[in-house]
């Protein structure tokens, strides 16, 4: 539904600076962990804010700017990723939905960690493990565990059902923890 001309220029400016700009750090970190490249993260964030301003009339002032912006960024990333794919007709199942995301699969047990794993681990090692996950798994961990979005917000940002959000989170967390455990074992932390 078109809401063009909804806000005056002054109100648009106010919304942009007071509601949109405060989330730039979070957006930048999200973009960085999607692309794993500073220059691409810069471009993605810039594109997100330009789109946000262009379509500001479709945003309800005073509501959930952060979720709205994250959705724009996620969609921009998907579009850019597909464009850059060398074989656009071939789906990369490693990165996209090659897993059976349904609630039945969430009956997999939880991977347990131990205190010793963290004793020597540093941030770079954690992000390395995170960045080795398929992008859809990485995304839900970033949105839930880092940015504290609710399941409902994540479902809207990623355009997947809430049940799929939960099962994907479960799998992603287990996968990340397995990587951390095996890394810790290699380094002698446990």
């Amino acid at each position, binding site marked *: 539904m078109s809401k063009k001309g909804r806000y005056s220029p002054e109100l648009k400016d106010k919304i942009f600076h007071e509601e949109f700009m405060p989330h730039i*750090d979070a957006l930048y970190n999200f973009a960085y962990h999607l692309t794993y490249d500073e220059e691409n993260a810069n471009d993605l964030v*810039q594109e997100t804010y*330009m789109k946000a301003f262009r379509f500001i009339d479709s945003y309800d002032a005073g509501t959930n700017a952060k979720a709205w912006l994250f959705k724009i960024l996620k969609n921009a990333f998907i579009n850019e990723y597909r464009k850059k794919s060398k074989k656009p007709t071939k789906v990369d199942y490693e990165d996209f939905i090659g897993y059976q995301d349904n609630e039945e699969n969430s009956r997999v047990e939880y991977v347990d*960690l131990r205190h010793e794993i963290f004793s020597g681990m540093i*941030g770079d090692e954690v*992000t390395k493990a995170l960045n080795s996950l398929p992008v859809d798994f990485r995304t839900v961990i970033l949105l839930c*565990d880092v940015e504290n979005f*609710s399941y409902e917000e994540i479902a809207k940002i990623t355009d997947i059902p809430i049940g799929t959000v939960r099962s994907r989170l479960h799998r992603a967390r287990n996968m990340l923890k397995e990587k951390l455990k095996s890394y810790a074992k290699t380094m002698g932390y446990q």
Partner: protein
Amino acid sequence: MKCLLSREECQALMDRVYLALDGALSGEEEKAVFCEVEKYPCCVEKIEIEKKYRSILIDACRCKSVPDALIQSIKKQVSGLMDGNSF
């Protein structure tokens, strides 16, 4: 530490714990879950480790500061659009 619960019971409890940690439960439900967990020391330890793991993950993932040049570029472009009255 051996769990006092069966594997199925432990998994069911941890399912609710994760919902609580993810903010998916009401205040009352969350309180009830953590009260339940208090009875099982091995589960309490799992939660402590999970919280530690999440804290490390957050610190690791929020390590990048947005470049000031990017902020200025965005503000300049928006200002340009506003002045151009494209809307």
